[in-house]
């Protein structure tokens, strides 16, 4: 009985501590614990789904998912919720039919490599964050939506970012770290 009371108290505490305290727009910096950074304009869903395109004899498949009210907790006990647009991708060499890179089996938010930073007009500014094995390598790119053709988007403005983390990097230079994102502009079509 004592344990059941303890469990109820625990669940009650967790429930209370993880309540949404206020709702603020995405990209808000100053917010209190328990805030929900919400996609108030419902823009993130525009990219949801699978998108494909071909460049330099390689087929690129992107899948974007919105994680609504994703809970983020900190080591310090802080927490907030946020609507997050995340992505994953696969690259196939059409010459050999070889799969060069495939992250499509990711299902948890943390395993998605691509994250939308901000939406500026028709532009989704994105970042790719590689795994520790690839030295937390980072790259940025943009997805441009065409308001007149919602079945096509343009991938462009690829740029390498920083790399390195707490674990030793097994590559001598950033150029040595495999990077499978397209580096040139690419039209992607909704599947």
């Amino acid at each position: 009985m004592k344990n059941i009371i303890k469990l109820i108290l625990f669940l009650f505490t967790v429930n209370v501590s993880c309540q949404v305290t206020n709702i603020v727009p995405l990209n808000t910096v100053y917010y209190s614990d328990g805030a929900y950074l919400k996609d108030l304009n419902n823009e993130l869903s525009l990219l949801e789904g699978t998108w494909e395109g071909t460049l330099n004899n390689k087929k690129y498949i992107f899948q974007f998912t919105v994680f609504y009210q994703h809970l983020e907790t900190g080591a310090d006990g802080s927490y907030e919720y946020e609507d997050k647009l995340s992505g994953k991708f696969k690259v196939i060499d059409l010459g050999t039919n070889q799969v060069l890179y495939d992250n499509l089996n990711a299902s948890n938010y943390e395993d998605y490599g691509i994250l939308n930073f901000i939406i500026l007009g028709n532009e989704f500014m994105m970042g790719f964050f590689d795994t520790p094995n690839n030295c937390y390598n980072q790259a940025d790119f943009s997805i441009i939506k065409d308001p007149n053709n919602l079945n096509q988007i343009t991938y462009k403005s690829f740029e390498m970012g920083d790399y390195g983390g707490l674990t030793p990097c097994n590559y001598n230079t950033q150029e040595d770290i495999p990077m499978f994102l397209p580096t040139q502009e690419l039209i992607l079509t909704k599947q």
Partner: protein
Amino acid sequence: MLSFTFYSCQKDEFIEESGIESHSEKNLKFEFKNKTFAELTKETKFKKAYQKFIDKKVGNSNFEGRTIMEDQYGFTIDSSLVKEFSSELYTSYTFFITRDSLHNDYFENLVVEIDSSNTVTAVIVKYFLNSPNITYPEHKSFYLDANAVEITPINFNNDLSKVSALGDCIGIWMCPWQDDHPATNVCVEENRGDLWLDTSMCDDSVGSSNESSSNNGESSSSGGGSTGGGSGTPPTNDYDGSDPDIHGNGGGVTTSPNTGCEGNCFEEVIVGTPCENITRQTNTASYKQRFKNLNTPENINANQESGFYQNLVNGKKRFFDGVPVGNQHLQIPEGSLNATHVHNKKPMVSATGINFDGSSKIPSPEDVAQLVTKCHDANSTNPENAFVITVTDQGIFAVTLLESISQSEEIAITQNWREFKKNYYDLSIGIKTEYSTPESRSDALQYMLLKQLKKVGLGDKVALFKATIENESDPDINNYNIKWSRITLGGNLFNPLDETPCP
């Protein structure tokens, strides 16, 4: 494991007392002094000599910046400690040379010598070490286990006639105490015996075959070379400080070897408050000079990062220039005690035409990673001395360690590192594009960084500091001050940041 002993390398403002009294008793009219470069530039004799071969990049006479000579020969002079040796016949100034790469098997000096006719000779002397120097802190000196040197004459102003004839050996005044070692004024003051001139260090590549031994003051020259008999022989009591082989016959220079710090260069490890730690380490003349040279519009507007780091070489702290790798980012090597670098501006235009600066105006996740890994480990038992400084066009910031990070803590932080990085860049892009003034952007970035550090488990481990520069245009580096303030999270959203100036 470092052993901690105890002469600080940070001799920025001192001038050693002369040893001339002891020598006067023996008619040895010469003296040893340690000075800073800034002090020397106030002396007419040095100024005249130095200006002969040092044309400044910037056409002024305030001795700022790297010289054409340094550029031409690819080195940088450590301005914090210059060894001056003077006699009635000549004066020599010996500078420690730093280069971009680390070497444990040799060190280099620039020796500038002025004779009584005001002829200036300048050479680079490279000492090839058989073993690391053994230090004699009591004498502010060291045992120099080197048997070969390389001497490179400096051709200044492209006018060879101004370079006096050079020999292929150098002269070093030695102190006959314990193992004979390069003399300093302490040897004279302590009456350790008659100093003697060791001329056995020769540049074999120019044909010398002098093999005289010097450790016990007895020499056995094996012929040839410009240093014949007499080299390595202790002088008589009425010796006047000159040496016929070194100076009488158009020989080489006499120098007081400079390893970049005085005697035992292991810096006394001091750990104070976070404010004291960052202030102390960035308040030496050598650090400030490097920082001043780095913090320029040219570096901020460059297309790659620039900076320097400090490493231990033979137990001595040395500054090295960082080399940008990969995508123009600066990486520091393992063993770096600290790092200082510029986040250069990255003007960007978004795909839909929005202009913004893509560079981080505060320490980046990679800077924090370098701090908690390489700098943490290099500072061994005193990680509180680790720091990484980031210079931007919108502020100068430092992240420092508040305490050691255990292995289990590091593992926990590592597990969340990817999310830390995602959140940092996610929020910082929003701040860069949505906050309209530099001040509001900077405040938001500082707040974001501190909050994300807390979330990843580094809230109690990493401190954030912000700097302002005092007397920025003062040519005297001793007046140039880097003033730090600690930035912490405020109590609430109405007061998101607290700024506490360091005393």
